[in-house]
């Protein structure tokens, strides 16, 4: 009944609604785990005491959140001009590969040169990878959705090719050698939280500021609202589409750079484990709004971090946590139907 819902304060309504959604996802996942003969309550207790109840666990959540947050922004920016970028995963890989090239080639440089260089290279790589779909869409030739999707797999394979053929480490050909210390992003508070967090938060604030207070943001929103009207008002549509797509790619490339330089300290084959797709989903569910993006990233990071505990506590593989992730996404995806009665 819509009338009754309107009498609640709005914020409370939203909070209660999201809590109910998360509860529903937890229930569904618990049911599946129970069917397979494991104890879901033990799993939940361990996951939440670790991720939210211990300093180390919480720091791990933040570490997991960094690339998810940045790739979500890589999707949100093009989304504002109506471009659908499912290619964050591929752009992230190519960005990581460019940054790795920098780390391996200029390893004798001091950190204050090497790290900014790697960031620039990562952005360049991601931007180049996004330029292909951006340009094809800009000139009106091919829809960007499908090209970004296809380039994901190509990006992953190009990275595999580079590692196995050019940069294999002596011990293991599926990864490069560990980077020199100057090529590693600094970490904070004795945890694994690295400078990527600052990068992500700065990007988030920048995104919010540009969209809200600058001419570019206004023009981007105009294009997203009605491209033809925007074009007739003298906004350079083609240029915007191509450049904004490249900016999205550059952000994803930066996420790749942060992952190899801040977390893995080397480039590995298949390192991202679908982080780019998580970014897409988060950005979509948050409607590309900055607050929504950071909240959703945090929730997804808790779930993904909790996965590492499944093996220890209820002897299930790490990948099983993807079920909980999927259920959480489902209930948000289906939210209109669950909580709002359709107006006839």
């Amino acid at each position, binding site marked *: 009944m819509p009338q009754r819902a309107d009498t609640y304060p709005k914020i409370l309504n939203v909070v209660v609604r999201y809590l109910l959604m998360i509860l529903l996802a937890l229930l569904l996942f618990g049911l*599946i785990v129970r069917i*397979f003969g494991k104890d879901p309550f033990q799993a939940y207790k361990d996951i939440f005491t670790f991720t939210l109840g211990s300093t180390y666990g919480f720091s791990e959540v933040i570490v997991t959140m960094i690339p998810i947050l940045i790739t979500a922004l890589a999707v949100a920016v093009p989304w504002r001009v109506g471009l*659908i970028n*499912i290619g964050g995963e591929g752009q992230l890989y190519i960005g990581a590969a460019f940054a790795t090239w920098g780390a391996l080639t200029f390893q004798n440089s001091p950190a204050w040169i090497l790290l900014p260089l790697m960031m620039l290279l990562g952005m360049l790589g991601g931007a180049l990878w996004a330029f*292909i779909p951006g340009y*094809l869409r800009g000139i*009106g*030739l*091919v829809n960007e*959705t*499908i*090209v970004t*999707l*296809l*380039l*994901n*797999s*190509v990006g*992953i*394979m*190009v990275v*595999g*090719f580079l590692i*196995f*053929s050019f940069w294999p480490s002596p011990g293991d050909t599926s990864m490069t050698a560990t980077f020199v210390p100057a090529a590693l992003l600094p970490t904070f508070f004795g945890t694994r939280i690295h400078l990527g967090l600052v990068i992500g938060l700065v990007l988030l604030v920048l995104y919010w500021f540009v969209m809200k207070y600058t001419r570019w943001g206004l023009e981007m929103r105009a294009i997203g609202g009605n491209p033809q009207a925007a074009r007739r008002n003298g906004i350079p549509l083609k240029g915007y589409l191509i450049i904004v797509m490249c900016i999205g790619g550059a952000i994803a490339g930066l996420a790749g750079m942060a992952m190899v330089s801040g977390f893995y300290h080397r480039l590995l084959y298949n390192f991202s484990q*679908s982080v780019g*797709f998580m970014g*897409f*989903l988060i950005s*979509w*569910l948050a409607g590309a709004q900055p607050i929504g993006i950071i909240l959703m990233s945090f929730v997804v990071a808790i779930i993904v971090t909790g996965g590492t505990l499944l093996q220890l506590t209820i002897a*299930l*593989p*790490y*990948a*099983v*946590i*993807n*079920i*909980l*992730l*999927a*259920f959480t*996404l*489902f209930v948000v*995806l*289906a939210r*209109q*139907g669950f909580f709002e009665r*359709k107006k*006839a």
Partner: protein
Amino acid sequence: MSLLSIFGVLSSAIFAGTSLLYTTLGEVIHQRSGIVDLGLEGLLLVSASTGFAVTFESGNPYLGVLAAMLAGGLFNMVFGYLVINRQANQLASGLAMMFLGFGLSALIGNAYVGAKINGLPRMLLPGLSGLPTLWTSLFKFDILIYLAIPVAFLVWWLLFRTRWGLGLRAVGENTDAAFASGRNPRLVRYQALFFGGLLAGLGAAHLSIAYTMTWGEHMTAGRGFIAVALVIFSRWQPLQAIVGALLFSGAIAFQLLLQSIGVEISGFLLETIPYVVTILVLVAWGGNRKHSAPASLGRVYYGRE
């Protein structure tokens, strides 16, 4: 480079490519009804693990194939609930389904990592029993390989020569017009998802029960996304999907062939061929209306209440 090794390469390419033909056919049906299913990768994993588990427990590979198909059809019902009933975005829901597939298949397959099964029996091509054993082993295929091309024709017949197929394509082109002509777009899309899911599940069954005969997490290695690419490559035509699957098999055969004559070329680069060719094909069409996708592809049907 002997004739024997050339046939050996072709034989292994056929084994590697068959699952992809079934999967592509399934996605052709989805997309003809107007639904993009990016969760295909997850569906394949769930079907492959279910089929493997049932084969292992029952000892009967045919039962495993059946279970894999059903798993695919049922998995798609969850997707259908999201995109048809709940009117959620298809791309986002598909990717969420992919994550569900990662998790579910890991859970189902957990007990069977490293297990061995007797896969689908392989039968010699008729008329070749006179050949020496070294040769006959190259012409032994399982029933799913023999059925792959007939099934492509069956799907073509269903889509283009039956009333059901006409209705399905009508929903994919214009849901409102289909509704006006007395069809139920929601029901049609559910049917498309279920039937397409059965076919994709059959592809996954070939992968785990007939080809590798093992289960491992992420064993489908991106085949779901290759199938999405091949659907575009084959212009949403079931018969052209055969060509698409051959493109994939050909890339694998080429790689094996080069390896057998001592040329080292990275398998990674050859595996990009289906994607790169699809992108080139898209560029070559360049928005030409004649080749375009079903008009309602990706659109939510809000109904007429």
